[in-house]
C-alpha cells in the first residue's frame, strides 16, 4: 500500500483497472443474465421442437402399425375364418410392414365355435416369417392384447411389456372384430420399442439432458436408467423419494404429463433437487407422454462458459489496459519525479540542479516551464534579498555602533568622584531597542562646582543620537566657560537652531551645584522638572520654569533659578522615558508613581534610588517593549562639618549705608557718587575707592546687561557694612541666578576673541577685592565684596599682584 500511496503511476493504473474491472463485472453480469434468459428461451424452443419431432416420429410408426393391423382386421373380417386365410393375412401384413415384429389373429373362445383354428401367430426371426397355430391358447385370452379389446370392444394399445422371447420391450396394438355386437376375433400387431429408445438416446439434449417416455399408466418405457424401464412408474419412483414434498412433486409432475396435453415446466428435479426444465408432449394414439428434461446447469454451464470466455477476453483487455495505464502513469510520473528531485535540490539551495527535459506541451510540460520560471524568479529574488539583507545588516551594524557611541559619550564610571565624600552621584541610561537621544552629563567644573545635565533629543535613531552627541558636547563645553546654566542653554540653543533643517530639538535640564554653599543654579529647556528629595520633607518637583527646547528656535531666552540644597538633600533628574514608560495596556508610569517610588527611597544612596526607580519602571512595563530611553541621574550633596554659613554671619548688624539702583546703565553715575561718598566717609584710600568703584561698576553692568530676561525695571540694592578691618558691600538683585564665583579663572593669555564675555570683569573683581562671595537667597543673587581697610602699602601690595 505504501507504494500505492506513493506512486502516481501505480495508483492511476489501479484506479483505471478497478474502474474497468467494475465495468467488466457489470457487463459480465448483464451478459450472464441476458445470456441465461436467451439460453432458457432456446432450451424451451429446443425442448418443444425435440419433443414435437420425437412424438411425430413415434406417432408415425405407431400410426403405420395401427393402419396395418386395422387393415388386417378389416380384411380378416371380410374373409372367411379359414386358417389359410389367416396365415396368408399374417404373412402378407408382416411382409408389407417391416415395422411390425409380429401379428396374431385370435378367434374369441365363444366367437367361432366351428372354426378350424383358434389362434394364429406370426413373428419375424431374422428375415424369415414364422407362423404358429395354437388351438388351445388357454390363458392367452387372459392377456391384455386379447382381454382388453375383447371387453372394451375397441382397438387398444396395450401397456408396453418386456418380451422374453425377443428380449425387447414390445407393445401391441389390438383390434377387435365384432359381429352382432360381440367380439368375434382380435387381430393384434406387435412393435418393438427398441427403436424409440435409440431415437430418444440420439436426441441432442446436451449434457445432463434426458428424454423419458411414459406409458399411459406412467411406466417408464424409455429412461436413461434402464433398470427403471418397465419396472418403475413415475409414481413408484415418486414413492421411493425421501421427502413427502419430493414425492408429491414427482407424482404431480407425472399426472400432469399424462393429462394428454403438451406443456413445459421449470422445476426442481425431485430426484436430486436440481433446477431443470421439463418439456412434455403426449403421444396421442397410445396415450403415452414424452418428456425431455434439460438441467438448468446445462444453461448455466453454457452461460458460464461464454462468460468465462468473455471474462478472459476482458481480463486480457484489462491487462493491456493496465500496461497502458502504467505506461501513461509512468510517462506522467517520471518527469514529475525528476521535477520533485529538482525541487528538493532547489529547496536545499541548489539553483543549478538540472530540470528534466520535457518537451511535451501538456500539463506536466507547463508545470516544468512554470517551475523553471519560478527558479529564475527565485534566484533573482534571493539575489535582491541578499543585497537588501546586506544593506540592512550594514545599517543595523551602524546603528549598533551609533548606540555604542551614544552610550560611550556619557560618563559611566561610578562612583564618579571617589575622592569626594560630600558627593553621592549616580546615573543610568537604559537605552531602548532603537538608538535614542537621551543623555546625561556631569563633571566638576572646579573643586567647588559640579555641573549636572540631562537631556532628551526628539525622535530616535541615528539623527537623534547625533543630535544628542552634539547637544551634550556643546552644552558641556559652553557651561565650562559661561558657568551660567541659562546662558549656556541660550548659547547652545542658538548654536543648534542655526541650520537646524531637520527641526530636531533637545529638552534639557542643567545646573551647577556649589559644593561649598549647596546653592544650585539651574535652567530648564523644556525638560521634565527634577525631583527634590529634601531630607525629612516630602518629595517635591523642583520649580523649573521651562524654557524652549534647545534647537527649536533661535533667540530663546532661559531663566536661571537657584535654590539651596541642605545636607543630604537629593536631586533626581530623569527623562520622559521614566514617566512615559508604558505597560502592555499602554498605561503610563506617570509622575505620581515616580513621586511615590522616590518617597519610598528618600534616604537611600543615589544608586539605590535609581535602581529602585528603574525596577519600578520595569515592573510597570512588564512584558511591554521599552519604547524610549530611560535615563536617570541622582545627586546628593552632603554638608561638610564646620562649613561656614556666610549668610548667618552678616545677619545681625544693619548696614551703615544702602543704595538702590534701577537696572539702567545711567544709574551707574549714582553708584560712582555713592562710592566716592562712602570712601570719604570711611577713609578709603583713593586707589582702593577706585577699585571698589570699578568692581561694583563691573558687577552692576553685568547684572544690568545680562541679569534680566525682560526689560522691566528692577531694583538693585547695595548695602554697606564697615568696621575697623574692612568694608563689606552686598549687591542684591532679583535677576537670573548667576554665581560669578563659579566661573573659572580667566585665561588672560588666551586670544581676546576666545575669552568668555564678562570674564574679565569678574577677573578684575577677584583681583581687586579681598573677598568675593556669592549666595542666592529668596530668588535673589547676593554678591558680597569685601575690602580690607589698610594703608597705602597694602594697596601697593595689592597692585603688585
Amino acid at each position, binding site marked *: 500500500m505504501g507504494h500505492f500511496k506513493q506512486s502516481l503511476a501505480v495508483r492511476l493504473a489501479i484506479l483505471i483497472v478497478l474502474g474497468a474491472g467494475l465495468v467488466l463485472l457489470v457487463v459480465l453480469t448483464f451478459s450472464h443474465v441476458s445470456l441465461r434468459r436467451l439460453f432458457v428461451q432456446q432450451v424451451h424452443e429446443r425442448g418443444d421442437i425435440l419433443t414435437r419431432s420425437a412424438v411425430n416420429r413415434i406417432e408415425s410408426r405407431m400410426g403405420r402399425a395401427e393402419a396395418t393391423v386395422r387393415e388386417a382386421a378389416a380384411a380378416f373380417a371380410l374373409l372367411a375364418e379359414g386358417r389359410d386365410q389367416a396365415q396368408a393375412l399374417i404373412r402378407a401384413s408382416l411382409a408389407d410392414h417391416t415395422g411390425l415384429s409380429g401379428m*396374431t389373429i385370435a378367434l374369441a373362445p365363444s366367437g367361432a365355435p366351428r372354426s378350424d383354428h383358434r389362434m394364429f*401367430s406370426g413373428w419375424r426371426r431374422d428375415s424369415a416369417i414364422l407362423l404358429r397355430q395354437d388351438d388351445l*391358447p*388357454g*390363458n*392367452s385370452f*387372459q*392377456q*391384455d*392384447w*386379447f*382381454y*382388453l379389446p375383447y*371387453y*372394451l370392444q375397441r382397438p*387398444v394399445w*396395450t*401397456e*408396453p*411389456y*418386456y*418380451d*422374453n*422371447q425377443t428380449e425387447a420391450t*414390445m407393445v401391441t396394438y389390438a383390434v377387435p372384430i365384432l359381429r352382432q355386437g360381440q367380439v368375434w376375433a382380435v387381430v393384434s400387431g406387435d412393435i418393438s420399442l427398441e427403436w424409440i429408445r435409440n431415437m430418444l438416446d440420439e436426441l441432442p439434449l446436451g449434457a445432463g439432458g434426458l428424454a423419458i417416455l411414459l406409458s399411459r*399408466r*406412467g*411406466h417408464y418405457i424409455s429412461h436413461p436408467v434402464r433398470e427403471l424401464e*418397465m*419396472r*418403475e*412408474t*413415475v*409414481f*413408484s*419412483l415418486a*414413492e*421411493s423419494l425421501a421427502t413427502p414434498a419430493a414425492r408429491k412433486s414427482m*407424482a404431480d409432475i*407425472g*399426472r400432469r404429463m*399424462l393429462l394428454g396435453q403438451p406443456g413445459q415446466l421449470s422445476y426442481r428435479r425431485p430426484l436430486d433437487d436440481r433446477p431443470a426444465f421439463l418439456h412434455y408432449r403426449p403421444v396421442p394414439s397410445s396415450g403415452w407422454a414424452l418428456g425431455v428434461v434439460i438441467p438448468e446447469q446445462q444453461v448455466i454451464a453454457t452461460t458460464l462458459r461464454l462468460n468465462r470466455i468473455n471474462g478472459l477476453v476482458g481480463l486480457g483487455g484489462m491487462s493491456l489496459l493496465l500496461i497502458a495505464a502504467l505506461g501513461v502513469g509512468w510517462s506522467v510520473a517520471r518527469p514529475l519525479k525528476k521535477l520533485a528531485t529538482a525541487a528538493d535540490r532547489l529547496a536545499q539551495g541548489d539553483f543549478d540542479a538540472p530540470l528534466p527535459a520535457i518537451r511535451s506541451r501538456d500539463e506536466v510540460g507547463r508545470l516544468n516551464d512554470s517551475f523553471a520560471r519560478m527558479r529564475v524568479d527565485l534566484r533573482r529574488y534571493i539575489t535582491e534579498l541578499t543585497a537588501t539583507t546586506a544593506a540592512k545588516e550594514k545599517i543595523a551594524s551602524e546603528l549598533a555602533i551609533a548606540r555604542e557611541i551614544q552610550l560611550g559619550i556619557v560618563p559611566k564610571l561610578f562612583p564618579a568622584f571617589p575622592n569626594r565624600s560630600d558627593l553621592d552621584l549616580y546615573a543610568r541610561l537604559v537605552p531602548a531597542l532603537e538608538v535614542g537621544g537621551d543623555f546625561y552629563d556631569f563633571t566638576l567644573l572646579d573643586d567647588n562646582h559640579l555641573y549636572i545635565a540631562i537631556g532628551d533629543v526628539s525622535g530616535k535613531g541615528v539623527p537623534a543620537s547625533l543630535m544628542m552627541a552634539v547637544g551634550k558636547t556643546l552644552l558641556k563645553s559652553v557651561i565650562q566657560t559661561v558657568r551660567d546654566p541659562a546662558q549656556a542653554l541660550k548659547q547652545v540653543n542658538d548654536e543648534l537652531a542655526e541650520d537646524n533643517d531637520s527641526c530636531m530639538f533637545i529638552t534639557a535640564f542643567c545646573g551647577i551645584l556649589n559644593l561649598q554653599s549647596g546653592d544650585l543654579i539651574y535652567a530648564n529647556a523644556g525638560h521634565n522638572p527634577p525631583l527634590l528629595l529634601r531630607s525629612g520633607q516630602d518629595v517635591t518637583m523642583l520649580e523649573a520654569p521651562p524654557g524652549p527646547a534647545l534647537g527649536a528656535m533661535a533667540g530663546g531666552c532661559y531663566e536661571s533659578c537657584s535654590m539651596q540644597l541642605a545636607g543630604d538633600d537629593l536631586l533626581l533628574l530623569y527623562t520622559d522615558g521614566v514617566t512615559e514608560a508604558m505597560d502592555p495596556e499602554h498605561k503610563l508610569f506617570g509622575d505620581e508613581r515616580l513621586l511615590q517610588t522616590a518617597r519610598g527611597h528618600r534616604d537611600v544612596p543615589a544608586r539605590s534610588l535609581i535602581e529602585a526607580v528603574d525596577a519600578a519602571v520595569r515592573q510597570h512595563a512588564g512584558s511591554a517593549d521599552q519604547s524610549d530611553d530611560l535615563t536617570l541621574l541622582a545627586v546628593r550633596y552632603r554638608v561638610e562639618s564646620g562649613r561656614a554659613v556666610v549668610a548667618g554671619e552678616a545677619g545681625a548688624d544693619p548696614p551703615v549705608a544702602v543704595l538702590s539702583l534701577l537696572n539702567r546703565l545711567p544709574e551707574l553715575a549714582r553708584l560712582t557718587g555713592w562710592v566716592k561718598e562712602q570712601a570719604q566717609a570711611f577713609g578709603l584710600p583713593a586707589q582702593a575707592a577706585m577699585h571698589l568703584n570699578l568692581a561694583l561698576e563691573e558687577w552692576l553692568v553685568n547684572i544690568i546687561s545680562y541679569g534680566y530676561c525682560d526689560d522691566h525695571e528692577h531694583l538693585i540694592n547695595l548695602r554697606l557694612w564697615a568696621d575697623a578691618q574692612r568694608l563689606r558691600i552686598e549687591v542684591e538683585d532679583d535677576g537670573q541666578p548667576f554665581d560669578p564665583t563659579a566661573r573659572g579663572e580667566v585665561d588672560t593669555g588666551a586670544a581676546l576673541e576666545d575669552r568668555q564675555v564678562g570674564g574679565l570683569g569678574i577677573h578684575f573683581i577677584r583681583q581687586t577685592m579681598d573677598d568675593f562671595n556669592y549666595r542666592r537667597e529668596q530668588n535673589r543673587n547676593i554678591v558680597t565684596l569685601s575690602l580690607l581697610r589698610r594703608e597705602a602699602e597694602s594697596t601697593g601690595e595689592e597692585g603688585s599682584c
Partner: protein
Amino acid sequence: MLLWSVSKRWPLLVTLVLCCSLAVTVNPAGAAGDDNPDALTLVLQWHHQSQFAGYYMALEKGLYKDAGLEVTIIRGGSDVRPDRLLAEGRADFISAMLPTALEMRRDGLPLVLLAQLVNRGNFQLVAWKHPDGSDGTPVVQPADLSGRRVTVWEQDFRSPYLALFRGWGARPEILPQYYSLSLFLHRGVVACSTMRYNGYHTLLQNGVSADELTVFNLWELGINLPEDGLYALADTWRRRPEASRRFVRATLEGWRYARDHRQETLEVVMRYIEQEKLPTNRPHMAWMLDEILKSIFPTNDDPWTFGVLSRQSYRETTQLLQRQGRIDSPPAYQDFVRTEALNGPL
C-alpha cells in the same frame, strides 16, 4: 394378480425355465437320509414377492439350516401347478390359500395344513368412485355396483366376492379378471378385485389417486377368508413329522425375523426380484411386506393367533365354500389341520 403385462407367449418360456430350475433344485433322491440334512422343497403360489418374505428370511438367515433342513424354494406363477408338483413328489410343501387348499383336497390331493400364516384376508373390491363422471351415481356401497360391470378373479378367488355381492345385495355384471388391472384402468369396468397388499397399491403406482377410488375391504365387511397357509401331503406329515415340524417352526421364525427386520427383508426380496427380472419395484415390495405382515401377525385387537387357523375361521370358510357349491363335504378340522406342527418339540 399379475401387475405387469406378460407376453402371450410367456407360458412356453416359463415352462422351459421351470423345467431347468426344477432339474437343478429338486433332489432326485427324494427324502434325505438320517445322516444328511433333510432336503425339503417348498413351492410358492406365485412369483417371488414380499408375500413370501418369511420363507426367504428363514432360508437367508440359516433358520432352516439350523433346523437341520436343506430347503429349496420354488416360485409359483400361472405356469406352475403346486398341486401337481406335490402329487408327483417333486415338492414337500406348498404355500396356498385356504380355499384353494380345500378345493385341492376336494380334487383328491390329501393336503394337511401345517401353519396358517395369513389369518386376515386381503381381498378387496376397488371401484371408481365416480364411474360416470361427477354427475353420475357414485359408488359408495357394494349395492351401487348393481347393473355395473365389475371384474372378479376366477375360480378359487371368486368365492369371497360372490359372498360379498350376495351379502350386500349387489347384482353387478361380473367379467372375468385375470392378471392385470388394465381393464379397470381403461375404465372398461367400474370395479375390480384386488389384494390389499398388491393390486390396490399397483393402482396407486399407475397414477390413480386414492380419493378416486371406493374400496371395499372384504374382511371389514364380514367376509374374512384365511389366506396363505403352509401345506403338505398328509403322507409327508406322517412320514417326516420331525422334519416337517422343524420346517414349520423355522418358517414361523423366518416370518418373525421378517417382521422385525423389514429393511433387510426388503433387500432380500428385491434380490429375488432382480434374479427373476420381475417387472416390479422396491416401493411396491415395501408396501406389500408391510401389508402382508399386518395380515399375518395379530395386533391386540385381532382375534387370531400367529400361525394358527382357528376352528371358527375354518368352519366359516368351509361353510362359504359349501354354500357356493365349491366343495361338498369339508374334512374335519382335526384331520385337516396339524396343530402339532406348531406345538411339538423341536
